[in-house]
């Protein structure tokens, strides 16, 4: 499956043309604080050698058609549209 995903990334997700996802995600401030705490813990720890062979997902960014963030009632609301 990992090889298949890597192949899709390498070919610009050619096999999945037509895929579309639309997400509206309100993230409570508690979750943001937990993410910050985890990020800071990671930054203050000595870097471990990377052994992960997970596919590089950076090329997915080209398929993000809309990404908006706004604050509302103690939550950060993220709106994302993705299409291939």
């Amino acid at each position, binding site marked *: 499956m990992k090889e298949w995903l890597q192949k899709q990334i390498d070919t610009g997700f050619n*096999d*999945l*043309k*037509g895929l*579309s996802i*639309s*997400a509206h995600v309100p993230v409570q401030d508690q*979750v943001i604080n*937990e993410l910050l705490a985890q990020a800071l813990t990671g930054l203050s720890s000595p870097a471990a050698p990377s052994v992960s062979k997970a596919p590089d997902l950076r090329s997915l960014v080209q398929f993000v058609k809309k990404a908006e963030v706004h604050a509302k009632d103690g939550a950060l609301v993220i709106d994302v549209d993705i299409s291939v």
Partner: protein
Amino acid sequence: MNTVLQGLLSRNLADLNGTYVTGSLPVPEKVLNDIANAKIAERPGRIKQFAIQVGADNYVQLGIRVSVGPFTKWFRPEVIVTTETPVILFTIASPEYAGLMWLAELFARELLPSGVRIDGRQITLDLREVPQVAPYRRALSYLKTLRVSTRPGTLMVGFEFRID
């Protein structure tokens, strides 16, 4: 698993209340065949090859080459794919294959995760019972709609996920 994600799941995703995700995913039969054939390459057994063809009106022909004694033989049952969220149903449409449900049992035993049930001419895949989905089982209760439709050559999967 990431500790933040673990925390979110342990609170039953309540911190993400109001989340709404919809999507549609066209899966060409080439992708289905690539995945299915890669799976049998990983775990060689009696199933030697897949040649899946997607037709219209939720009809899918499952071409399966199976070793029978010293030979191999192609079986090509047609199934109708439907959903009852979060269950995917495959109903054998070819009457001549109704007596060959051992093929489905072989398929399930060799390749499919637990969560697959065979009952008469119907094979059901309950996503809640798939071991790989276990950590996210409670999150599946927010999967409000899972749709499968077909057009020649492509399986279309649609979903709606809502936390409320």
